[in-house]
């Protein structure tokens, strides 16, 4: 193959790719450490308002902890006769998807030596309320589809940016959780 001019370019998207690649190598050798458990605790407050917090999780063979506790208030808007103390749970799902895909884009861009300047995602989840209201059993409760539109300004061609977005979906946990079935077990203590 032809010689290519060496491109020396310092890209910083704030992602420590060396650490990620190191983790990949380490966990290939010790796959037990790769088994993580994520947790959340939810308390009902009043009406449709609840607050979910996350702090501890399990991974690398031991208990881990976030730097601080994070809280997510969920509620419904006033047109649902609610007090609107927080995002609707389905909006939190969109936030999860956006956060996951966007983190992936930054990581893949760093790995491919692409400097990002701005990344903005706009998400839409369509839903027919006849499902959750039990009006029509042929209508599902959840989204009938999710649309994600990225506007990305980066030192890269259109094809390279499209490839970033595609690769990020391929490696995204939340994208997988949404596009593929997951067994959910709910018990009462």
């Amino acid at each position: 193959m032809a010689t290519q001019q060496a491109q020396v370019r310092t890209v910083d998207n704030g992602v420590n790719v060396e650490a990620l690649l190191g983790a990949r190598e380490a966990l290939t050798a010790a796959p037990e450490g790769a088994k993580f458990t994520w947790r959340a605790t939810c308390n009902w407050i009043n009406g449709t308002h609840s607050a979910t917090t996350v702090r501890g999780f399990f991974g690398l063979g031991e208990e881990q902890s976030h730097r601080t506790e994070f809280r997510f208030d969920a509620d419904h808007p006033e047109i649902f006769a609610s007090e609107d103390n927080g995002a609707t749970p389905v909006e939190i799902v969109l936030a999860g998807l956006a956060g996951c895909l966007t983190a992936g884009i930054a990581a893949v861009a760093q790995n491919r030596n692409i400097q990002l300047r701005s990344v903005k995602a706009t998400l839409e989840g369509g839903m027919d309320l006849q499902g959750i209201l039990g009006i029509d059993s042929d209508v599902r409760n959840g989204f009938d589809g999710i649309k994600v539109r990225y506007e990305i300004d980066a030192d890269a061609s259109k094809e390279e940016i499209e490839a970033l977005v595609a690769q990020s979906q391929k490696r995204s946990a939340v994208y997988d959780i949404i596009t593929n079935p997951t067994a959910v077990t709910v018990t009462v203590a």
Partner: protein
Amino acid sequence: MFERAGRVDVVVIGAGHSGLAVSHCLAARSIEHVVLERGGVANSWRRERWDSLRLLTPNWLSRLPGYAWTGPDPDGYMSVHEVVSFIAGYASVIRAPVLTGTTVTRVEPLPGGGFLVVTDRGPWRCRALVVASGAANLPVVPAVSAGIPRRIRQLTAHEYRNPGQLEPGGVLVVGASATGVQLADEIRRAGHEVMLAVGEHVRLPRVYRGRDIQWWMHAAGILDDRYDQVDDLQRVRRLPSPQLVGARERVLMDLNALSDRGVRLVGRLAGVRDGRLLFSGSLANVCALADLKMQRLLATLDEWAKRNGFGGEGERFPATRVPRPQLELDLGGGAIRTILWATGYRPDYAWLAVPVLDRKGMIRHDGGIADWPGLYVTGLPFLRRRKSSFIHGAGDDAHDIAAHLAHYLSGVARTAAARKAG
């Protein structure tokens, strides 16, 4: 020739193109060996492939060390029958020491080095062993198959021969490798309704800029990419075969072509729940990934063409058309009578009692040099080069492995001599 079991320097297991290429390279180094074959030469090609299969590479590219294809149609693609003749012809021309009808039932390491190779026709003892038993011994069927209701017939590509085996009614083909797309196409042409469940796949045009895509890959040196120089070896070794068919008309066998012929595309088969198949919502992305990767490859070929004085421009292919998503299929509706698993193959090492298998049951190796002294493996995807899984890729790998093996045997001999002298 060897009439019965005994001692030999090297045992090669498998008389397919890879094992025979190794045999040729060992013979060139005057290394005593025997090739054990459970059936006849090229056994898997004789017994474990569907009727219409043809090679994905054109005839002119079919070559083995000391042997080249000769025939009237260099741009054609060998049928299974022709592949068997080609490989059997090779065995005969190189006078390979093949023992056919000899099934290896167990291989164990011997204390002090070497191996005991137990067969149904007596044991062999050898100093080095080359596993050339193939990459596609067993069909891989995903765990979701266990949840499929009994009234649906399940069949693997390993068992499939032709559409005549199928009951009337719809067929779901799972997997969009070369196997999946070819079978979906053939079964659709036979008049069945066909759904194709598509996960990650490799899209390639059969013809690019007027030449077979394999010509370009070969000429540009892409097929020679080495295993120790690619970014993610595990990924490239797992890549499904490209969506190609070895048809003389050089037809395009991509997902758009299948859609045009009435094959319904759905996402990866992700689960079965309450008698319903659940398809992944990732179809658009796996198609986008395959389109982007194909465009990158074609751009690489264009650059190579330009540097090497080829005029003209490369054509571009339309993006894969993704149908309106279908995420479920009620098996009770009767639309699907048969599920055909084209979800890949794996080698069978049940007989290998050498502690060299990883947690996935694959031999731990570095470019075919296994993680056990004197043990080698060949004929696996991207073993040492991108072309390793092709017939024409066997030669270079066999040459490298024979060189390492010769060095190993002489080292063993030196050690033994030193021990004796001391």
